[in-house]
C-alpha cells in the first residue's frame, strides 16, 4: 500500500508541493519580513532616544539656578528665568486635579458597579469619545464657557480645560481598579451591616487606592504637557509669582479667599506654553530657554510615567507572589 502520497493530483502539483526551491523562497521571505519588523522596532526606538538625548544635551546647556528662581527678564539682561511658568504649571495642575479627581472617581464608581445600565454604557462610551477630542477644541469650549463669561483669562479657565482632559484617564483607570477589588471584600463589609457609601469609602476605594493614584498621576502627566487648551484660557503671564500675590494680599488686609481668588483668576503661564512662545521668537536667548524648559518638562512627564509603570509592575509582581 502506498505510504500516503496522494496520487490523485497531477505530477506538476506534487512537484510544486515538494520542490526545494519553493521552500527556499518561502523561508527567505520569512526571514526578510521578520527582520524588517525588528528593524522597524529599532527605528522607532532610535527616534525616541534621539529626541530624549537631544533635549537633555541642549537643555542642560542652558539650565541654571536662575531658571527656576527668577521671573523673565528683558532680553540682554542676564539671570532671567521662568518662575512664572513653573508656578503656573503647579497651580494649574493642582486645580485641575481638584476638579477632575473627585468627580472622576465617583463617576467611575458608578460605572464599575453599573456597567450595563444605559447611563453606564453612555459614560463608558462618552469617556472614550472625550479622550479623542482634540485638546484645542476643549480649550475653545472653556473659552466660550468661562473666559467669555468672566471677561478675562484665568488660571481657573485653564485648569478646567486641563481637568476635562484628565477626566477620561482618571475614570478609565479608576473603573478598572475598582473592578479588580475582590467581590468578597465588598460583600464582607456589606454583610456586617455597613451601608453602601461607607463600604465604598472605607473598603472598596482604599483597596483600589494605589491603582487610582496611578491613574491620577498619569492624568497629571498628560495634562501638564498640554499647551493648546491653555492658549486662550490661561493665556500666559510674565509677572505671575504666587509669593508676590500673597504678600500683596496680606499687605492690603485681604482675607484668605480673596488672596486665593487673585491667585486663581489671573492669567497664568505654564512650562509648555512658555516653551511654545519662546521657540517662535527669533532670539537665541529665548530659544535656549525653550530647550531648558523642554528638559524640565520632559523629566517631569517621563519620570511620572516611568514611576507609575514601575509601581504598577511591582504591585503586580507582589500580588503574584514573586
Amino acid at each position, binding site marked *: 500500500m502506498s505510504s500516503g502520497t496522494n496520487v490523485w493530483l497531477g505530477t506538476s502539483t506534487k512537484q510544486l508541493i515538494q520542490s526545494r526551491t519553493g521552500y527556499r523562497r518561502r523561508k527567505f521571505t520569512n526571514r526578510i519580513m521578520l527582520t524588517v519588523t525588528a528593524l522597524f522596532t529599532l527605528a522607532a526606538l532610535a527616534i525616541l532616544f534621539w529626541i530624549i538625548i537631544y533635549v537633555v544635551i541642549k537643555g542642560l546647556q542652558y539650565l541654571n539656578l536662575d531658571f527656576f528662581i527668577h521671573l523673565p527678564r528683558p532680553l540682554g539682561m542676564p539671570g532671567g528665568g521662568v518662575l512664572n511658568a513653573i508656578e503656573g504649571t503647579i497651580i494649574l495642575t493642582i486645580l485641575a486635579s481638584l476638579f477632575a479627581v473627585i468627580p472622576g472617581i*465617583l463617576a467611575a464608581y458608578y460605572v464599575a458597579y453599573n456597567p450595563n445600565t444605559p447611563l453606564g454604557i453612555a459614560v463608558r462610551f*462618552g469617556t472614550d469619545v472625550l479622550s479623542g477630542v482634540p485638546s484645542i477644541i476643549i480649550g475653545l469650549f472653556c473659552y466660550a464657557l468661562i473666559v467669555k463669561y468672566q471677561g478675562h483669562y484665568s488660571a481657573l479657565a485653564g485648569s478646567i480645560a486641563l481637568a476635562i482632559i484628565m477626566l477620561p484617564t482618571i475614570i478609565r483607570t479608576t473603573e478598572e481598579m475598582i473592578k479588580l477589588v475582590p467581590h468578597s471584600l465588598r460583600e464582607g463589609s456589606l454583610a456586617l451591616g455597613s451601608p453602601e457609601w461607607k463600604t465604598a469609602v472605607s473598603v472598596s476605594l482604599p483597596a483600589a487606592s494605589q491603582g487610582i493614584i496611578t491613574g491620577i498621576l498619569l492624568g497629571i502627566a498628560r495634562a501638564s504637557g498640554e499647551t493648546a487648551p491653555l492658549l486662550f484660557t490661561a493665556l500666559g503671564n510674565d509677572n505671575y509669582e504666587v509669593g508676590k500675590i500673597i504678600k500683596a494680599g496680606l499687605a492690603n488686609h485681604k482675607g484668605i479667599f480673596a488672596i486665593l481668588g487673585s491667585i486663581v483668576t489671573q492669567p497664568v503661564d505654564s512650562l509648555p506654553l512658555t516653551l511654545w512662545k519662546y521657540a517662535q521668537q527669533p532670539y537665541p536667548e529665548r530659544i535656549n530657554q525653550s530647550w531648558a524648559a523642554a528638559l524640565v518638562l520632559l523629566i517631569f512627564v517621563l519620570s511620572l510615567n516611568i514611576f507609575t509603570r514601575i509601581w504598577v509592575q511591582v504591585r503586580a509582581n507582589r500580588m503574584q507572589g514573586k
Partner: protein
Amino acid sequence: MIDNMAKQNHIIANRRPPSRWATRLRLAFHYGDRPWNALTISMAVLTILVMLAIGVLLWRESAGSRSAFGLNFLKPTTDASWNPVSGEFQAWPFIYGTLVTSLFSLVLAVPLSLGVAIFLAELCPEWLRLPLGGMFELLAAIPSVIYGLWGIFVFLPKVVDPVGRFLDTTLGNVPVLSLFFHGPIPASGASLLAAAFILSIMITPTITAITRDVFLAIPVSQREASLALGSTRWETIWKVLIPYGLSGILGAVILGLGRALGETMAVTMVVGNSIGGSLSLLRPGYTMSSIIANEFAEAVSPLHTQALIEVGLILFIITLLLNILARLLVWRVGRGNVQGARA
C-alpha cells in the same frame, strides 16, 4: 476554665434603641445610600454633559459665521480667502492641510506600527516585552511642544529638508504626482510634509499599542493550526493573524488618524503657517488646529472669532465621527469577530 472563656458581650445587641427621629432620618436617607447614589449618578451624568456641551457650545458660538458664509465656508477652492480685515473667511486651505498631513502620516505610520506591533506580539522574547512596550508608551507621553521644538531645530533640517528635496527632484516631474510633490521645499523645511512626518512619529505608539493588543487577543489555536500545516511564522502572521484581527487593526489605524487630525502644537511649529494656493506637500501649509492656535487669542473681530470657532466645530465633528467608528471596530474584536461555532 470557665473563668478563662471570653465573656460574650451584649453591648451592641443591648444598646439603647435609637430615637424615632433618628430612625426616620436614617430610613429617609437609606443609610446614606440615596445621597451616595445621587452623587455618583450625577457625576456620571456630568461626564456625558461635558461632551454634549462641547458640541452645543461650539455650534452656538459659531452661529454668526455659519449664517454669514454657509457652505461656501467649506468649498474647495484654490483661491481661498481668509481675511480678518475684510471679513471674508473660507476654511478650505485648513481643511485640506489637516486632511493631507493626517492621511499622509498614515502612509508612514501604518507599516511602521504594524511592524513594531508584530514584533512586540509575536517575535519578541518574553523578558523584553514589557520594557519595550514601556518605551513605546514613553514615546506617546512626550508632550507635543517638545516634538515641535525638536522638529524645528533637529528633525526638519536633518531629515525633512533632504527628503523634501529628493522628492522634489524625483516626483516633481512625474505627471500626476507632481501636483503634490513639487517644491521647492523651504530652506527651513517647514511644510505639510514636515507635519506629516512628525505626525507619523506621534501616532505610531497609539496604533502600535492597540494593534499589539489585538494580536495578543487572537487565540493560540489559530497559530497552532497554521504552523501545523507547515506555514512559516511570517505566513502565519500575514495570512492568518492579520485577517483575523483586521477590524481591530483598522480601528487602531482610525484612532491614530483621529489623533493626527487633532494634533496642534507640533504641527503648528513645523507646518509653515501659510495659506498658499498650492496642493503640494513640499510647500508650507496650514491646518485647522494651527489656524485656531495662531489667531484665536488675537482675533480682530467677533466674526473672526466665530469663523475660527466654526473651524473648530468642523474639526470636532470629524474627529468625533472617526472616534466613534474606531471604537465600534475595536469593541467588535473584543467580543470576537467571528460567528461562534455550534456545538
